[in-house]
């Protein structure tokens, strides 16, 4: 379930025209087979895995149209048409709650989390000492590599009622606070966890884009009397605009996907009303609750909408003259 956005992608790349392996001339099929069969053999294990764990499950989405029961096979289960999708359109409160939570969390994160790496990258870019900059980067990238279980555990230990900060406040006879296990603050909590984990990592791609800016542009701007702020506005920001848009497109494609592991780990403490999102709904309703067909219908709808969002956002980017994720 790893997504494209997991790792930074450069928006564009200029490569000197390197001599590549020559295109193999098309010959007769049998000769081609004899020539390339070793290559096909090499590709085979990977292809089997991709087919078995991407394309077979893709077809397995037919259970969204079936009344699946665990003791029947998918083929044996009766067709039920669009029945399973009714849960999406009938205003079922549990589903609506999951959808609302998902959209609210996405909105919060696009507004407050998404711009942070850019801001941090601009800050880091102004650090003159190369060594200091690298040290700070090493520290800030680190949390990205920790699992969500570890991040959640660390947050509990630091911010929990018996956590580090409250223990300190208690020792000073000060008022303690609680954010862990409070339903009203759950969205704040998970947002702060995302910020802690991934803001540093998110700067990489912006720093790479900034480093491509021709320094003579800064010098020219300075000669023309531009101060630090105007240089940032007129030189740095235009240079990273296409990267920013690319990442925004990818983020939009993930609009319906919000921190599944992160939320499932902390759901017990705050209850479903505050924390259920679409992915946890599919898990709780389908795998735990046994409503396989309905959960698959929700998952399928979510997947289709996500693809449409990426394609739509990409189209929009093209209309505004940007490169987007892919080109026609």
């Amino acid at each position, binding site marked *: 379930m790893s997504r494209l956005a997991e*790792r930074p992608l450069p928006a564009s790349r200029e490569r000197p025209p390197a001599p590549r392996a020559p295109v193999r001339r098309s010959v007769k099929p049998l000769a081609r087979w004899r020539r390339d069969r070793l290559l096909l053999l090499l590709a085979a294990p990977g292809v089997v895995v991709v087919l078995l764990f991407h394309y077979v499950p893709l077809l397995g989405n037919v259970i969204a149209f079936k009344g699946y029961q665990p003791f029947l096979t998918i083929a044996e289960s009766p067709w039920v048409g669009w029945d399973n999708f009714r849960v999406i359109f009938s205003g079922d409160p549990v589903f609506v709650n999951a959808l609302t939570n998902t959209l609210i969390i996405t909105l919060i994160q696009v507004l407050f989390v998404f711009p942070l790496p850019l801001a941090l990258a601009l800050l880091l870019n102004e650090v003159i000492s190369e060594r200091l900059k690298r040290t700070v980067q090493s520290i800030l990238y680190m949390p990205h590599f920790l699992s969500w279980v570890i991040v959640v555990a660390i947050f509990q230990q630091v911010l929990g009622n018996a956590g580090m900060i409250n223990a300190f406040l208690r020792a000073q006879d000060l008022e303690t606070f609680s954010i862990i296990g409070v339903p009203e603050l759950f969205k704040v909590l998970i947002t702060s966890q995302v910020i*802690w984990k991934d803001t540093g990592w998110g700067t990489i791609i912006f720093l*790479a884009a900034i480093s491509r800016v021709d320094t003579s542009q800064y010098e020219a701007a300075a000669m023309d009397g531009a101060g630090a702020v105007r240089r940032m506005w007129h030189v740095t920001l235009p240079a990273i605009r296409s990267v920013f848009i690319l990442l925004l497109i990818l983020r939009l494609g993930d609009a319906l996907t919000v921190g599944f592991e992160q939320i499932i780990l902390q759901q017990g403490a705050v209850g479903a009303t505050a924390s259920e999102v679409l992915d946890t709904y599919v898990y709780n309703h389908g795998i735990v609750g046994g409503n396989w067909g309905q959960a698959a219908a929700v998952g399928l709808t979510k997947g289709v909408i996500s693809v449409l969002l990426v394609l739509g956002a990409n189209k929009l980017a093209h209309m505004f003259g940007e490169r987007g994720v892919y080109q026609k």
Partner: protein
Amino acid sequence: MGKPNRVLMALRGLILGLGCAAVILPFVAVVSTSLATQQEVTANGGFVFWVREPTLASYQAILSGGVVTRALAVSILITAVGSLLSLVCTAALAYALSRPGSLGSRPILLAVLFTMLFSPGMIPMYLVVKQLGLLDNLLALVLPVLINAFNVIVMREFFLDIPAELTESARIDGANDLTILARIVLPLSKAVIAVIGLFYAVGYWNAFFSALLYISSPEKWPLQLVLRTYVVNETPMGVDDVGSGSDSLPPQLSIQMAILVISIVPILLVYPFLQKHFTKGLMIGAVKG
């Protein structure tokens, strides 16, 4: 480039300093508490920010047999076997796709790229794993994530940049594709192989949800599930859950923090290497449709 504004500079330093502190200080406290004795934990009312009489009792307790030791072995096994298999399959597939015009390479490449756009969904995935008889089998933590499309593309790009003179002259000397891959392409790609191998390894080490989904027997739990149960959910550890030997356990909080430290340390060990290469190794790869 203009005069540096002092207030701005101080503000910048403050923000970056706070950011670094927010990452480092929790680690210090976690390590410190894992080394603390019962007296110190009680005296501090919980967390021990700076331990005065460090003891390895917690580590001894959890590493001399019991739940954590077993989970550690499972995690190491999955990470080692998984990363190795992933690397072999990824490199082989990437090489096959890096010979333009070869039979079937175009449709295979498109099929791999398409997996990045659409994820098949949790329920069908679960049912496929179930149909294959992989439920409660450690292979379920490896096989579904064996191939990561992004890694295939990055490695393919890297292989494409290897000068054709090298591979073609070997071909004229009678080498087949397998020999070219093993003798020429792979030795020239050590950096990208190392980086992608480490990314796979971190992924396997950190995998939590797949284990929650597919593994039901506690004796097959990887470390992340043990972490969830004993650290996130704070289920107390009994004498039976740790290695034999002592009747009295170190403080629960120290045990919890020791489990946390054990699961973080491997990441910290490979981190300097990862950090040195990920920008270089991964920025060269771009998604090309």
